[in-house]
């Protein structure tokens, strides 16, 4: 009896196709492209602002164009997907044990949403005040 193990090749470019679990993962990885693009947009906003009122208003107008709105809507959707999936896995990475029991995952996830809400309120308050 001879051994001749058969090795199945894994496609480097198509491994995630046809498997919903891997597709969800790749969708999550893709979110970084949009979040990165939005970060660049914010930098451009700062540059336009430094160039004066006219440049900044032209920039705001570009944002309000159909293409600008579509980009922002798509980015928002991806950012939400990223955030929700990220918060959902936090109890795995940061389990908290008090005495014998572990703090329920929902509490840890909820704390992240509460933190998110608090930061949002703080930003809005600061924006109002300044």
């Amino acid at each position, binding site marked *: *009896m*001879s*051994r*001749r*193990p*058969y*090795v*199945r090749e*894994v496609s*480097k470019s198509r*491994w*995630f196709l*046809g*498997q919903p*679990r*891997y597709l969800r*993962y790749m969708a999550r*990885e893709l979110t970084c492209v949009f979040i990165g693009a939005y970060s660049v947009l914010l930098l451009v906003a700062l540059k336009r602002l430094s160039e004066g009122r006219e440049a900044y208003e032209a920039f705001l107008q570009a944002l309000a164009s159909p293409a600008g709105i579509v980009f922002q809507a798509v980015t928002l959707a991806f950012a939400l997907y990223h955030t929700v999936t990220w918060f959902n*896995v936090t*109890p*795995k*990475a*940061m*389990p908290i*044990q008090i*005495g*014998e*029991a*572990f703090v329920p995952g929902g509490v840890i996830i909820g704390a992240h949403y509460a933190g998110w809400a608090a930061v949002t309120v703080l930003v809005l308050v600061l924006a109002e005040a300044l």
Partner: protein
Amino acid sequence: MGERPVELEILRYNPETDREPRFQRYSVGCREEWVVLDALNHIKETVDPTLSYRWSCHMAVCGSCGMMINGEPKLACKSFLRDYVGVIRVEPLAYFPIERDLVTVIDDFMDKLARVKPYLIPKREQPVSDGEYRQTPAELKKFKQYTLCINCMLCYAACPQYGLIPKYIGPAAIALAHRYNQDSRDGGRDQRQEEIAATEGVWDCSFVGACSEVCPEHVDPAGALQQVKIASTVDWYREHLMPWKKK
């Protein structure tokens, strides 16, 4: 107890005669309460004695009968035929070389498992006369879920990173290393970190999370891996920002 016809499409590979694996279809009458493993045993006993696969306990304890069932890593003894519609496709665990039919070569996993030292390395050896190494229920609970791992390797067959990077130590071995690192009686973390904090350790994990989703014992290897990442990062900062502090 009813009987119903079941069609199985099983990947066959005979290293002595086949250049590559091929699917073979079997139509057999199966009982309503049977699992896929029962169907395989029935085929082997009554239709085709050459069919090869691993199994032992038939109760999801031994971890031998892991295979891909309709593309999902499953224990054949825990997969009820009644939960499937149409032809059931059975293949050897993904990402492992095929030895014969549904039997895979598991040497790679066994080697990695040994490398992470998944056993208690006491902080200090104490003589038997000193009694047992004691532990509180809270200390036990900290790692208990990881002790449920049965080394069935479903998590490896679910992990695309393992498929793409064969050197990656992988979910079960790292989760078991973490289990001992979390044990209050253990002092072997530094030895295990050599393996699991390396690039081929946790840093090849991209947190797909599939390992935890397919685990038949509801262990959470993905969680263990993220915790090891955090702990290793803290180590790095300690070492570089506070070099005067001993670990």
